[in-house]
């Protein structure tokens, strides 16, 4: 897919911002967090609308974070190098461990609660799982703050300068966020529709749901470990 070729032909900042978001979403490192988001968004097979709404809220969460960063730089005049350095550290050092913890908590409501007979951990886990749609928003807001080296230069090096020189540029980070969230929204919905279809067909909705919930937890832990390993390697 050659999005960059298309991008060069546009002179419309809004479309450039959207395409930049798409380029960000499909590059390897942001893709890792997007896979976790995808798993989260499509985890409820019985409610078809759940995926669409959670995916939309996930995108909204990203819009929220990117807009705040945008306002801090464009309106408040914060220096780009400082913000960029801070957020890249955040991505490496906070997000990985956090994903592992959330993954373990989510797993605990499915498995550990049975063996330990409840307890505090599983009650927290139940809460996290019940956040549902709000969880989608939080996930989006958090994942947006975690910049990889490549997404950092696309955001701070390409998008922000574009926003600085175009009129009404403050809105561009939000448009960029739609681009980064769009793949999750579309594929999350398709995935959840597919899973729903297959599980009804197999007449095993509840069982499939349980398997998915465990799978989502494992994906969270896996992505968390991937991020932590990359951090430790240096």
């Amino acid at each position, binding site marked *: 897919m050659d999005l*960059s070729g298309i991008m060069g032909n546009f002179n419309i900042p*809004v479309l450039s911002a959207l395409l930049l978001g798409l380029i960000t979403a499909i590059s390897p490192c942001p893709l890792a967090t997007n896979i976790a988001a995808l798993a989260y968004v499509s985890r409820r097979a019985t409610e078809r609308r759940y995926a669409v709404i959670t995916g939309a809220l996930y995108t909204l969460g990203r819009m929220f974070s990117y807009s705040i960063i945008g306002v801090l730089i464009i309106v408040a005049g914060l220096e780009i190098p400082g913000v960029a350095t801070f957020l890249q550290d955040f991505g490496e050092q906070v997000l990985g461990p956090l994903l592992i913890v959330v993954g373990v908590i989510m797993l605990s409501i499915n498995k550990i609660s049975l063996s330990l007979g409840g307890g505090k951990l599983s009650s927290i886990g139940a809460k996290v799982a019940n956040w549902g749609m709000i969880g989608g928003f939080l996930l989006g807001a958090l994942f947006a703050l975690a910049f990889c080296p490549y997404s*950092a230069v696309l955001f701070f090096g390409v998008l922000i300068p574009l926003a600085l020189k175009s009129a009404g540029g403050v809105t561009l980070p939000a448009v960029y966020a739609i681009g980064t969230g769009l793949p999750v929204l579309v594929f999350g919905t398709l995935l959840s529709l597919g899973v729903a279809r297959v599980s009804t067909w197999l007449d095993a909705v509840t069982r499939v749901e349980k398997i998915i919930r465990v799978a989502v937890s494992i994906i969270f832990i896996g992505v968390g470990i991937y991020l932590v390993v990359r951090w430790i390697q240096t």
Partner: protein
Amino acid sequence: MTKATKTKRNKNKATKSKVTKILWIVCPIVLVCLAVWLIVAYGTSPATPPPSGNSSGPAERVEVVYFHRTQRCPTCIHAEELTRYTVENYFKDELKLTFQVINIDDKENAAIVEKYGAYGSQLFINTVRDGADHIEEATDLYVLIHNDQAFVTALKNKIEKSLKGET
């Protein structure tokens, strides 16, 4: 449960489904309107000004500087490789050109990091003319990273321009 509450419930359900139906129609329309408004309101970006014609001849020196943090990603390493390939392949005999790879996290590099204002995996081209720096970040190359040929060609053009002092 009395009959009255039952009908009330059904009524509630009916209005609820109506509301959701309306929401499903309204939301996309609002989004489309928003997109159209954004495009119309902000229109096209101002055209980039043509390069100033009063450049004072060719560059004395051109510095290609690639920055990275200790923590690296595959895409960024690829960017460094493509830059190295371009410099070594097309500008091997160009004595005015230097190519540096700088780790931002290394304390020894603090001065050069400060000079370029670097914060991550970034590529800069500094055209030195009349003893003055003309630092430019090659941001337009970032989106070409997944297209090797386009990246190399664009960088080659950029460096050639810089050597002629056209930046």
